[in-house]
């Protein structure tokens, strides 16, 4: 029966689930209302299994739930077993040594009874090396930054450890970063040590976006959204192009 072909069943912490084959363990847990802590997971981006915070136990092994697709029936998953709690505490300890002041990690450290590892203090720059920024950049249509190097040397950077030449200044990476590590400014626009021009709206002069991000979107010299609304409304109403007044700038 189609039900049997397309669905997979099992238990999480003793509670039964039935979800479409290929659903990740994390999503299945969410559908049961269970929360598994995550840091490098973003629903809009491919999972990467980088932070290891979402580890759970199945068949005596630890797996990253954000990455693990459910394919076989009868999986009995544990999200709070001693093995899981111990691994999670260890993970929080490692992450905390990267970002010792991050409020979310401090909260997790309290929850799992751990603290930063003083022996790892020199890598404490606030970046978790979770790679969310890299994935957000790629999804936005650019590959300006990457995770480069191994172990404690690993870091997010542009090519040759220089400010990323391909960066368009859209700020998506900074928006998804869970720790706020990435310094940026919206106005004037700057990020990753680069300053960007902002193209003004040809009609009202307000900044619309960097030339690079507009080019990426395939638009060269657009009006700002509110002048776009004005412009087509005027033409639909048969009015000549003209300046306008809006209550409250948008």
């Amino acid at each position, binding site marked *: 029966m189609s039900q049997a072909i397309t669905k997979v069943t099992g238990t999480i912490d003793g509670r039964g689930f039935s979800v479409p084959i290929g659903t990740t363990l994390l999503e299945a847990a969410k559908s049961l209302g269970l929360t598994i802590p995550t840091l490098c997971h973003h629903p809009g981006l491919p999972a990467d299994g980088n932070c290891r915070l979402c580890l759970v136990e199945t068949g005596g092994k630890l797996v990253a739930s954000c990455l693990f697709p459910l394919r076989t029936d009868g999986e009995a998953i544990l999200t709070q077993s001693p093995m899981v709690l111990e691994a999670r505490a260890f993970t929080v300890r490692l992450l905390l040594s990267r970002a010792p002041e991050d409020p979310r990690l401090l909260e997790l450290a309290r929850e799992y009874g751990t603290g930063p590892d003083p022996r790892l203090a020199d890598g404490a720059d606030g970046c978790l090396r979770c790679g969310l920024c890299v994935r957000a950049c790629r999804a*936005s249509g650019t590959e300006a930054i990457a995770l480069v190097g191994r172990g404690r040397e690993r870091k997010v950077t542009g090519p040759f450890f220089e400010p990323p030449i391909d960066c368009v200044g859209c700020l998506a990476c900074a928006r998804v970063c869970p720790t706020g590590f990435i310094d940026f400014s919206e106005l004037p626009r700057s990020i990753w040590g680069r300053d960007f021009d902002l193209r003004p709206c040809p009609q009202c002069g307000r900044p619309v976006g960097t030339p690079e991000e507009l080019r990426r979107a395939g638009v060269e010299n657009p009006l700002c959204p509110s002048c776009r*609304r004005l412009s087509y409304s005027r033409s639909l109403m048969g009015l000549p192009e003209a300046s306008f007044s809006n209550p409250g700038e948008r």
Partner: protein
Amino acid sequence: MTHKTIQVTPSRCIGCLNCELACASRDWGQYFPAGSKINLVFFKDGGQVPVTCFQCDEAPCLKVCQTGALARNELTGVIASDPDRCVGCRTCVSVCPFGNINYSKAGRRVEKCDQCQGQPRCAAACPSGALTFVDDAKLVQARRRAYAESLKSVASTEGPK
């Protein structure tokens, strides 16, 4: 299921901003213009018109979004945004020819009309019948053409002051 559309009758709009207020309040609990997904365009030479997403058939915003944050409900034809999936690249904002998607820095997400999942608050709040939620059997393209015609006839019969 029939597609429904928010029909705008410009001649009936009295410029009260109730639609913007109702829209912004849904997600923000308070009114500020940037929080609204329907926007009044005020003409310097008199008159105004409320504008919001057309739920285009060939929607440029939908085409560029790579995270699944923008998705069309095939039953209703409505394109809604999922803030959890949005990474804030703002490409959709750049490509909307009508300026009907905005990015909210405060909310870290795009602001886009989703017709309130079938109960648009703007239409309910409109006191003058300028916004009505009606069945739309026609294709979106035809709908937009009709809308353009209605605007033109309004402009020619009543004219801006």
